[in-house]
């Protein structure tokens, strides 16, 4: 489960995805480049569609790269995703020449700041994705396969589960959702800062999943737990800051909560 900005991402089966923040940066940097281009200003409708579709596609390709490395070449997830963790942000900065890109594009910023029926659009997106993913994990063939691969890969292989395909799909989904999250951040700020988008987001995501009760060893995916974990961590952070407690203290308190969550789960598993 990965929850940058409260957006759900899939649990790679027993793996860890360090590339989340960097993929956010790539997608986030790419979107304004497309809709600010001459072609897009000439074709605003198509331009907007492309500025959403192309970054998502690029993000998906990053996930495909991770997935192939892990599932077909047997590279350890933490190493494979480290490649984009390091290079992704570099690519994003090269794309933008390292500059802060600011823009005004109400259609695009609607993604980050718009409201629908009184609720922020990004809230609707989070809600829709949570429900979709929960349904996928519980009801679909892919979801069941995902949990079985995460829970016991050898047993899953023997039972005829297409393990490599499941893993690759999972990294593609995770990266695509990271791309979406990156675009939402950019839309919120009306600016894209390749150096900052999604920074350390992969760790927040892991923290949210752990607080929500996911097993990092794989095989358990409490989707709503992860949502609660993400909301809880964010809310707590904002509450502490709003009460005049410093950023640094907030980090320490967050860490303490993770320790508490892990400890409580130990009790529940024994």
């Amino acid at each position: 489960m990965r929850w940058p900005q409260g957006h759900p991402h899939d649990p790679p089966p027993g793996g860890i995805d360090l590339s989340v923040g960097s993929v956010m940066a790539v997608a986030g940097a790419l979107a304004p480049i497309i809709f600010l281009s001459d072609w897009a200003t000439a074709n605003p409708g198509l331009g907007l569609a492309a500025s959403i579709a192309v970054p998502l596609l690029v993000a998906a390709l990053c996930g495909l790269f991770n997935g192939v490395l892990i599932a077909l070449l047997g590279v350890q997830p933490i190493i494979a995703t480290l490649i984009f963790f390091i290079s992704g942000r570099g690519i994003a900065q090269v794309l933008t020449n390292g500059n802060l890109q600011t823009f005004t594009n109400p259609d695009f910023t609607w993604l980050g700041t718009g409201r629908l029926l009184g609720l922020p659009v990004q809230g609707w997106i989070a809600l829709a994705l949570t429900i979709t993913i929960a349904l996928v994990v519980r009801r679909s063939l892919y979801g069941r396969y995902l949990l079985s691969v995460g829970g016991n890969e050898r047993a899953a292989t023997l039972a005829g589960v297409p393990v490599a395909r499941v893993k690759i799909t999972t990294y593609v989904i995770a990266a695509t959702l990271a791309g979406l999250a990156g675009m939402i951040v950019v839309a919120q700020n009306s600016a894209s800062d390749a150096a900052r988008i999604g920074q350390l987001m992969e760790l927040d995501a892991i923290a949210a999943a752990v607080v929500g009760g996911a097993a990092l060893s794989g095989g358990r995916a409490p989707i709503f737990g992860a949502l609660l974990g993400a909301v809880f961590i964010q809310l707590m952070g904002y509450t502490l800051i709003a009460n005049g407690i410093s950023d640094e203290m907030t980090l320490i308190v967050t860490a303490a909560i993770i320790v508490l969550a892990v400890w409580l789960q130990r009790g529940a598993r024994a």
Partner: protein
Amino acid sequence: MPDALLQMTGITKSFGGVPALADGTLSILPGEVHAIVGQNGAGKSTLITILTGVYRRDGGTVRWQGREVDLRSPREAQAAGIATIYQELTLVPQRTVIENIVLGYEPKTRLGMTDWRAAEARTRAVLGRFGIDIDPHRPLGSYPTAIQQLVAIGRAAAMEAKLLIMDEPTSSLDEREVQVLFGVIRQLKAQGTSILYVSHFLDEIFELCDGVTTLRDGRTVGAARIADLSRLDLIAAMLGRSAEDIRSVGMTELSGQSRAEGGAVVLEASGIATGRRLRKLDLTLRAGEIVGLAGLLGSGRTEAARAIFGMDRLTAGTVRLADQPAAITSPRAAIAAGMAFLSEDRKTEGIIPDLSVCENLTLALLPRLARMGIVDQKRERRIVEGFIAALGIKAAHMDQPIRQLSGGNQQKVLLGRWLAIEPRLLILDEPTRGVDVGAKREIQAIIKAKVKEGCAVLLISSEFEELIEGAHDIVVMQEGRSVTRLSNPGVTEDRLIHAMAAGAPA
């Protein structure tokens, strides 16, 4: 009668309101090898985990060396002199034998550093005592399982344990290694160490143990000297039936089958090889027939099953499945072609521990339960309900995680996983190993019924009774080759052993 080293009386323990142990009693004398037997779910593991300090008891008393004690953690139990050799080894394979022997109890120099010279001396003393001749400077993982297990025992001996608990210590050893282990156990016993021996192999218990405690449904139902018991008495006590009952129906549920004549050939393997462990196997299987695969450990039985099921790539020979021209190169393809393979290794190749009974049972069937990628859960649950009833699976409900079930019930769920795909060919690798006597008979009865329906079964088993009573034909393997095929009726234990040892029918 000397005073007991350990006296556990009236131990009770419940998990989430479900009693696992209602009245556990266990008494072990100094210097005796004591067996504890019972079906899976009888409460053996619970009693032992309370003794080792992993769980706390709800009620009852534990007296250790005459004093009432309360062991609150594995460390406290170890400090008191209770050491455990687990089924899964818990040592560090990458480190040397010496490091493993002294781990956590390293001798120190005056400067507080580990005194490696003393550590080596201690290691050599222990290994020498058991007659194990290995280089203690090499990583533990470079030695076979049997040696690693002996090192684990050596470690316990070096810690001067008074009671050594062994949980299924022979499950991955071959005959010769078992004899070495038994030698070590007898030596420990001669030195006054008591041993609590947990095993499903009754032969071992009768060969090795002095006393035995029987558990059933969470209660101690008997404690006796081995010398006063017969095998049948012990099985009867475990099952809660009379010895007469069992004598009249035979020892396994596979006995008394008639062969379906003229069944169509389902599988034909000729000259298959996958490497050093499987060099040349010929095998023909017909519908409605059980063919046993016999051989000593390491003769290539499991490798044969893996090759047929598409897990290992063939380096020579062909496997032909009726109406299936394409070669089978993956388990997925094998399943699609109507094959099923129940692995001998339930834990690492069978169960998905955190998934439910239902999800585990339908894993292989799942593609057929899904339409447009969505699992038809109504149908799934109906099918699972059917199997739970038909196989007598004991679970609180089908959504219970499978890891909470006893070994026998886990095995039934896995058998259900394969029966659900209605295979033409069912490969069973040690289907009743590590399973209690009751579940064993039930599993055998299920296999028998399946064969009657026309399924072909390839049965790999180390139990002569199971093979001789169950299989129509027995293919004997030696060093990766099939050497002979014995036909029932007429196979006797002597003939089979002779064929396994010499490669020629007696």
